């Protein structure tokens, strides 16, 4: 694939991909997220490839390993397109039957389908599974549709359209206005409005400026940033480049915790691909805007998730927090204005630019817009990642999506926001 020199090149490339993957083309998506790999997803993918090759279908049916859609507990998760048939806890031994009966015979292997424990009803399509049905998966929904190692997959789903729009149809001020209007708030815990943070850095004196992704995700039990970074690395990159354009930064950093080697691998690959295709580096898409990104792997220290400690670590020093009276968006990395946002915050940026703040603010509450990804773990029937509109009650999350407490046991307590968050113990959590 050639270097893309203009938004026109990008659209042409996208159209070519769309023509090649006309709607209705069959495809096997196997989640290759950390959870599913631990449950044997690699073996399932290999089994599909071998079985399709033996059946002479390898050229017609694509098999891809994708990012995590959230239902890790029932992994390995397999979704068959175009029907969107979803099979759970698939083993390599199941694969010949899936190929023969579902891919060739177009019938459903009921044993692998989600069965509602209460009603016994089957949910064949991914979207019909109650765990997913009550979610609003603006970010996580695409994970199962794309191979995180394929730029083409991201482009086919509309990737980098937001970047082209920002660079060619919007001034940095217009992008900033849109982000402010969306009322996007930081997803890393503090909830600070992203637009205001960006504006502070843009207006602060000092050059160069930096934009930074916080992928330290140190809270035990949390793996939403991991799913985004591993599963859709280009979306984080696209958000970061747009952020750089907006505040006038030409360098970005991605700080990834040491425990996430696959995230490091996928984001590094995404950076290389974007550079090769003119989406990163000098003169992006012919716009005249230059931007480079460096990945920094953490070395294990919970405190490094804190913004000033993270910046000290990026400088190659022991990551101890600095006094708070210095605002890091004004005086951060190397004492320069630095915008630090959480992975999920960055992931929302291309969505907002593509579809507009008015669309984004349709989700959530008056004070908090959009969706939030939670990791639902512990003694609960359905564990995994869930993405819901801001303001959904804990009760709905625990009971409607999570399926309640196993064995009909009484609800005791739910911990929110990691160890620095709170513990709610009302028997019927309101929110």
């Amino acid at each position, binding site marked *: 694939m050639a270097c893309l020199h203009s938004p026109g090149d990008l659209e042409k490339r996208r159209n070519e991909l769309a023509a090649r993957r006309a709607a209705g083309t069959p495809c096997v998506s196997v989640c290759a997220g*950390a*959870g599913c*790999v*631990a*449950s044997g997803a690699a073996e399932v993918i290999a089994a599909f490839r071998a079985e399709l090759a033996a059946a002479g279908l390898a050229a017609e049916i694509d098999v891809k390993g994708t990012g995590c859609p959230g239902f*890790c*507990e029932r992994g390995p998760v397999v979704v068959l397109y175009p029907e969107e048939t979803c099979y759970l806890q698939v083993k390599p031994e199941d694969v010949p039957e899936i190929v023969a009966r579902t891919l060739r015979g177009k019938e459903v292997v009921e044993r692998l389908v989600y069965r509602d424990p209460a009603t016994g009803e089957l949910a064949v399509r991914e979207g019909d599974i109650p765990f997913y049905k009550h979610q609003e998966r603006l970010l996580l929904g695409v994970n199962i549709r794309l191979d995180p190692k394929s730029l083409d997959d991201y482009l086919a789903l509309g990737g980098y359209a937001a970047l082209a729009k920002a660079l060619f149809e919007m001034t940095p001020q217009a992008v900033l206005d849109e982000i402010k209007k969306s009322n996007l708030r930081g997803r890393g815990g503090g909830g600070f409005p992203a637009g205001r943070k960006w504006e502070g850095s843009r207006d602060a004196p000092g050059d160069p400026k930096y934009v930074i992704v916080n992928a330290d*995700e*140190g*809270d*035990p*039990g*949390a*793996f939403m940033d*991991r799913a985004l970074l591993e599963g859709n690395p280009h979306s984080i990159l696209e958000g970061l480049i747009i952020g750089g354009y907006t505040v006038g930064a030409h360098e970005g950093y991605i700080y990834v915790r*040491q*425990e*996430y*080697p696959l995230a490091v691998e996928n984001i590094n690959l995404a950076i290389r691909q974007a550079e090769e295709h003119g989406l990163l580096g000098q003169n992006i898409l012919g716009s005249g805007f230059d931007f480079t990104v460096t990945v*920094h*792997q*953490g*070395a*294990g*220290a*919970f405190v490094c998730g804190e913004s000033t400690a993270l910046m000290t*670590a*990026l*400088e*190659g*020093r*022991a*990551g*101890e927090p600095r006094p708070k009276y210095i605002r890091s968006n004004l005086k951060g990395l190397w004492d320069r204005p630095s915008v630090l946002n959480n992975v999920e915050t960055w992931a929302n940026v291309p969505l907002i630019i593509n579809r507009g703040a008015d669309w984004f603010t349709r989700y959530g509450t008056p004070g908090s817009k959009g969706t939030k990804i939670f*990791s639902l*773990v*512990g*003694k609960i029937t359905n*564990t*995994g990642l869930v993405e819901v509109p801001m303001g959904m009650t804990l009760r709905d999350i625990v009971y409607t999506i999570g399926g309640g407490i196993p064995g009909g046991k009484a609800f005791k307590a739910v*911990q929110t926001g990691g160890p620095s968050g709170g513990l709610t113990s009302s028997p019927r959590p309101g929110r």
Partner: protein
Amino acid sequence: MGNDRIDEIIQKHHGEASALIQILLEIQSEEHWLPREALERVSEKLGVPMARIQHVATFYKAFSLVPKGRHAVHVCMGTACHVRGAQRVLDTVQDVTGVGPGETDLDLKFSVETVNCVGCCALGPVVEINKKTFGKMTPAETADVLKSYE
């Protein structure tokens, strides 16, 4: 680890002092610890004082200033793993390896650590051996897996 290899790693990071942590991570991952001679070479090449390197090497959990075993066993004791029986898994790890958290056996075979989250809570209890994740572990499975390592 010879100086040639260390120089190669430093070269890869363009000899920049800000890449100190990334350079130490690579040495740690190849040697399983940070030998003093290696740190001295890094100090000399990057022009970073030994005192600062030692501060960095002791601050971050990923680094060790003493030799480590060939296999790094991480038992997750995070909330979700804890409520699903991580303690029994840890007990088994201790029985099989003969060492507890933070320790390395005399043959330098296993180093055991407890961690607070490896990021796949839906699969708790989780054990990681050399970065490979094993989920939904029972004590018996834990023992079997450990025995499969040479």
